[in-house]
């Protein structure tokens, strides 16, 4: 069954036809060509496909595109302002929190969701926020450091 949905992705409005079975992940990657969102386990375990939906992180592999009708989506492409990277993106690079990079977009969006709610998280809170994001390269330490560092930058702490 075909459905016509309207949604905003990274601030841009789209009106688009989707099938009942299309998941948000495929809409984002295949139809909108925003391939920063990664296709991992397709069962809600790995978090590679994490996007923000109406301000909160969700696994886009487990949301039907038609369920996203009327919603606002932010993908990793929506974080930078032109060439200016988001503080989280900068920190991930500076702290070496990226190795193969496959988990990074999801990690950064989970981190952003945390910092949107809590500008000064503890390391324990950071770990809980990214427990739905699996990294098989770095061992999480540098990711945690990058998130703490970005939080500090965003608060405007003196360094």
């Amino acid at each position, binding site marked *: 069954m075909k459905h016509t949905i309207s949604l905003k992705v990274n601030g841009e409005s789209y009106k688009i036809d989707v099938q*009942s*079975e299309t998941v948000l992940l495929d809409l984002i990657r295949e139809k909108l060509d925003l391939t920063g969102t990664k296709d991992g386990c397709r069962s809600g375990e790995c978090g590679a496909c994490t996007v923000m939906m109406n301000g909160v*992180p969700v*696994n886009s592999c*487990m*949301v039907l595109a*038609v369920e996203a009708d009327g919603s606002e989506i932010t993908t990793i492409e929506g974080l930078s302002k032109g060439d200016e990277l988001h503080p989280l993106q900068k920190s991930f690079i500076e702290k070496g929190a990226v190795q193969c990079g496959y988990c990074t977009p999801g990690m950064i969006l989970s981190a952003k969701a945390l910092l949107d709610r809590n500008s000064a998280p503890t390391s324990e809170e950071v770990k809980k926020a990214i427990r*739905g994001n699996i990294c098989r390269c770095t061992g999480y330490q540098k990711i945690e450091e990058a998130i703490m560092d970005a939080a500090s930058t965003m608060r405007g702490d003196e360094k």
Partner: protein
Amino acid sequence: MNRFDYLKPVDIKEACTILADKGSKAKPLAGGTDLLVRWRKGKVCPEYLVDLKGLGLEGVSVSKDGGISIGALSTLNSLLDSEYICRNYPFLTEILDDMGSVQIRNRATIGGNICNASSTSDLAPILLALGAKSKALALDGERELKLENFFLSPGKTVLAENEILADIQLPPFSKKSGAVYLKMKRNAMDLALAGVAVFLTLQDEDTCAAAKIVLGAVSPTPVIATQASDALVSAKIDEKNIEKAADLAEKAVTLVKKEVRPIDNVRASSWYRQDVIKSLTAQAIEIAYKRALQSIKK
């Protein structure tokens, strides 16, 4: 890929009509965090998914007696954010905080968790321990259900195909009560290998007036350990003597073991689950007792 049609009813009446018309061809869709995974794996092949979101079955409302009605379509994170739950049912907040990931909790709903009737549900044991009730809606009316009679087998509940679970109702949590759910798992995202919910109400600082112990993840459906619970009722619990409480727990556990037919599978053997239950029950009774004492002293 199995095809399905997504249907979005605009109100409860339309939802009930669709479910009644389509019968076993239709599946209600809540958060989808289990259903869509099982659909993708070919374990369920519905012809229709009927989205129940946006029908007004979300949110927490406080009843006159101070109890609550939790809309079945409330996401786990919306409940985690509920100040009323955090203040009056803090043990529930604690459980929610340790379920799945943030991403999952933003979609998964309490009604979905219950209707899935998974043997490893983290919510079912504590809700049973509290004596939760539910309301089921259908075209020809509604009915009240006791949650303890709700689960039939994994994936099967007493809900008919044309019924919708509307809410989960919790009685007010008494000042003399303490509750906790403890689970054994390997890591943060893992499902419980065994879980124990304990709900105690004290008569005074020493004596237990009412107790309910419910075991999860060890049997196809949650088990109310009646004999273990009864063993605590009217029993003296001496605050100064932790050992005495531990003895009571031990006593409860030996009774618990008779009632359980533990799951025996690749994730954990039955003897291991049994051992874990024994230890968890003892710990849970102690924690629930301490919490009840704290709330008496407040």
